């Protein structure tokens, strides 16, 4: 089959899976009545909940079993992962046939139907032709995303079978997960910004549903709302960008938009229109991909089940922002060149920030990477550390995109998906083993008890730290090198420092979790067990991925043509006219090797520091305590995440919502109430008129009919006297009359 016919089938399977799982769940739980109400009240069944509250509130929760059978469990177990697996198979088939048909140089677009067919009303209200099709597009970029989203998605479905096995909401979980896969595939495959936006909102909804999966817990419900509202702010930006694109290009189709932009960049760049569109789209990306200032929802999103954290909040959904920026790379490149042209040489940082959307992306990415990494240093919740690590790594990706190394950014998306999914699932395995414990202060010494988890997490940690020859090394080094070579030494320094911090906090996590003495309660220690095979096998697959996937992007200066990844993606970056193309930077191999060695050295330093810092000598906590004592304020700020949540609370929640509420109250009391009361008076007046009309005419007519029948009854009723002779008289009179008529007229 051709790629075009295969393409639309890819998202269909998860959608069917969602429907089947969801309906079965509804059927089961409407029949059983209140059995599952409140849903998931026992957190994670087995007690390995993602919440301490679940654990503390439920002292009877004693490990496994204890709950009755989960209805349709076998069906959910098969439908959920198989739906995702079929998507993976079809995605592979589609990519293979696409490769055969085009050699990867050309996109394949499958148009299903017309969604907003304004083109048929050309000239209507003077509007130009405008159509939005429901169409899917397969090109190098979406092929890449498609491949790893379906692959990792399927693995995490399998992992969830083990992880969520004891949860009452098993079916609900799989229906949400399938719906997520459907939305994510829509996002990735969408051939225009509008379809991408549909998927974008879909994954946002699923993120909300899954963060608030344990919705009887306040913090989970709140975290879900927080994520949803933060994303709405971003979506506003996305919509502004979308409308700007409609205004500029008269279409939202990627192919048409970008070929028009690449043909005549000057027309679109004039007046900073492209820069505005890019910045607006980037606001959307900061929401979805958790960048400053909208990053605070992602750490809270860890209230959801761990497979969700791995799939949605680490590997796939949060990279949607990066994907979208890379997708719109033409616009960002034009914005960059336009800024250089208008500002000339030696532009100030402020000038760049207001003219060059790419520079904004780079700065936001770099600063987010650094800030999140520092916060990660002092967190003790294992999932929070990983969450801040994700924010930090996403910052790297945006840094790569911002310095116009879109390939490098995507490469990091790709490798990050593997090692971060592995880390999250590993942390899930740790939490599972410790019956719900997430605080690293209550862990330690787990190395021998859960060896598979330990080994896979160590591999992934080495990868994320940038240890040479593992995947994270290639992608991170590419971003760092490009940042320096594109002339941003300060951003490079920040990112390199962040690389050191990353190595440090990741090894801190490993040390605190797997080394030293166990610090938790004794009875938990006795229950510590390695996770079931569905989980460990997935961990190993991802760990192997974390090692090998980097080899598709060996830097060209080491092996000429080694960066196959970049070459594969190349068709996704259409050429601009020569005067809009930056001069290729000439870097000596010595410089490139030097940069690489520098970043390796910094990462090595971070690892060294972390390994010596914790558990050294007789007093394992002496050194960290000394540092904390030396810099109490710095520690306080980092530990409390720079009080950003509190600042947002004060400014937006209290300031705008509560104080601003006073203003709104005044408006409400005067204007809205005035309108409401006016409407009321008008309505009352009108109702009097209606009342009169009703009584007079409508009732008149109705009663009139009744009255006339009553009167008729009174008259005619008298005829039926019961006196036989009256009837006889009638007959006789009738005969007499007939005879008379006969005589007269005959």
């Amino acid at each position, binding site marked *: 089959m051709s790629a075009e016919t295969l393409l639309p089938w890819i998202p269909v399977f998860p959608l069917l899976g969602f429907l089947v799982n969801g309906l079965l769940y509804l059927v089961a739980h409407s029949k059983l009545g209140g059995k599952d109400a409140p849903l998931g009240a026992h957190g994670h069944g087995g007690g390995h909940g993602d919440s301490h509250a679940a654990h503390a509130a439920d002292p009877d929760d004693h490990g496994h079993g204890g709950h009755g059978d989960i209805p349709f469990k076998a069906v959910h177990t098969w439908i959920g992962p198989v739906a995702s697996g079929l998507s993976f198979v079809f995605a592979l088939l589609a990519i293979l046939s696409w490769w055969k048909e085009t050699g990867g140089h050309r996109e394949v677009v499958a148009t299903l139907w017309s969604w907003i067919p304004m083109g048929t009303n050309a000239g209507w209200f003077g509007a130009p032709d405008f159509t939005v099709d429901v169409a899917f597009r397969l090109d190098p970029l979406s092929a890449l995303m498609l491949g790893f989203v379906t692959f990792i998605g399927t693995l995490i479905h399998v992992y969830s079978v083990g992880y969520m096995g004891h949860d009452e909401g098993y079916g609900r979980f799989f229906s949400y997960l399938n719906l997520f896969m459907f939305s994510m595939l829509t996002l990735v495959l969408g051939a225009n910004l509008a379809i991408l936006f549909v998927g974008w909102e879909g994954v946002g909804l699923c993120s909300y549903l899954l963060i608030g999966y344990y919705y009887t817990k306040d913090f989970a419900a709140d975290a879900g709302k927080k994520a949803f509202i933060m994303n709405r702010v971003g979506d506003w930006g996305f919509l502004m960008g979308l409308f700007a694109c409609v205004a500029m290009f008269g279409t939202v189709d990627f192919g048409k938009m970008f070929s028009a932009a690449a043909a005549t960049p000057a027309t679109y760049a004039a007046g900073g229109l492209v820069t505005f569109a890019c910045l607006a789209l980037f606001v959307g990306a900061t929401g979805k991909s958790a960048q400053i200032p909208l990053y605070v929802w992602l750490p809270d999103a860890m209230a959801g089940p761990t497979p969700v954290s791995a799939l949605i909040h680490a590997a796939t959904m949060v990279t949607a922002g990066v994907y979208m920026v890379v997708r719109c790379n033409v616009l960002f490149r034009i914005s960059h060149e336009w800024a250089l042209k208008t500002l000339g040489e030696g532009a100030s940082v402020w000038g760049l920030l207001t003219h060059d959307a790419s520079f904004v992306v780079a700065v936001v990415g770099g600063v987010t990477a650094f800030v999140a990494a520092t916060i990660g240093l002092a967190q003790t919740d294992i999932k929070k550390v990983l969450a801040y690590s994700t924010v930090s790594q996403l910052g790297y990706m945006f840094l790569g995109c911002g310095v116009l190394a879109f390939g490098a950014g995507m490469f990091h998306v790709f490798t990050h998906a593997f090692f971060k999914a592995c880390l999250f699932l590993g942390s899930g395995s740790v939490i599972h083993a410790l019956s719900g414990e997430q605080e690293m202060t209550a862990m330690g010494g787990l190395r021998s008890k859960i060896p598979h988890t330990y080994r896979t997490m160590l591999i992934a940690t080495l990868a994320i730290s940038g240890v040479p020859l593992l995947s994270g090394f290639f992608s991170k080094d590419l971003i760092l090198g490009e940042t320096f070579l594109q002339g941003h030494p300060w951003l490079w320094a920040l990112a390199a420092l962040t690389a050191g911090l990353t190595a440090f906090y990741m090894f801190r996590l490993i040390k605190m979790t797997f080394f030293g003495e166990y610090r938790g309660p004794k009875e938990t220690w006795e229950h510590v067990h390695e996770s079931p095979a569905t989980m460990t096998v997935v961990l190993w697959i991802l760990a192997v991925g974390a090692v090998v996937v980097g080899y598709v992007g060996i830097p060209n200066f080491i092996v000429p043509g080694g960066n196959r990844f970049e070459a594969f993606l190349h068709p996704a970056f259409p050429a601009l006219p020569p005067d809009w193309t930056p001069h290729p930077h000439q870097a000596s191999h010595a410089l490139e090797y030097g940069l690489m060695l520098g970043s390796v050295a910094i990462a090595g330093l971070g690892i060294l520091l972390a390994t010596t810092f914790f558990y050294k000598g007789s007093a394992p906590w002496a050194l960290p305590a000394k540092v904390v004592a030396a810099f109490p304020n710095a520690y306080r700020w980092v530990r409390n995440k720079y009080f950003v949540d509190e600042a947002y609370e004060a400014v937006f929640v209290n300031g705008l919502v509560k104080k601003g509420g006073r203003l709104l109250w005044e408006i409400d009391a005067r204007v809205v109430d005035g309108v409401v009361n006016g409407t009321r008076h008008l309505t009352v007046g009108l109702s009097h008129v209606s009342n009169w009309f009703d009584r007079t005419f409508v009732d008149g007519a109705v009663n009139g009919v009744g009255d006339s029948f009553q009167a008729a009854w009174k008259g005619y009723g008298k005829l039926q006297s*019961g*006196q*036989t002779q009256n009837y*006889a008289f009638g007959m006789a009179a009738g005969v007499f009359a007939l005879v008379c008529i006969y005589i007269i007229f005959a």
Partner: protein
Amino acid sequence: MITLAHFVGLSFVVFTIGVVGVLVRRNLLTVLMSIELILNAVNINLVAFSRQLGDLTGQVFSVFVIIVAAGEAAIGLAIVLSLYRLKSSVNLEDAAEMRG
């Protein structure tokens, strides 16, 4: 000389008396007797025209009418009797249950 007109005249007078009796008298027995008068007026007519036309069918017919009148008198008197048992009266005005 008694002509056909005399018979028809007599028949008319008897018929009229019968009809008026049916319509005005309240006593059921009187009404029955008035019906007999009507039937006999018809019989006079039938016999007169039978003789006038020389066709015996009319006379045969009048015999039928007499038989039917006998049956009618028997059933009528039976009804009157049961009415009397029910109402202790043979007054037509008392049998007005069907008044609307």
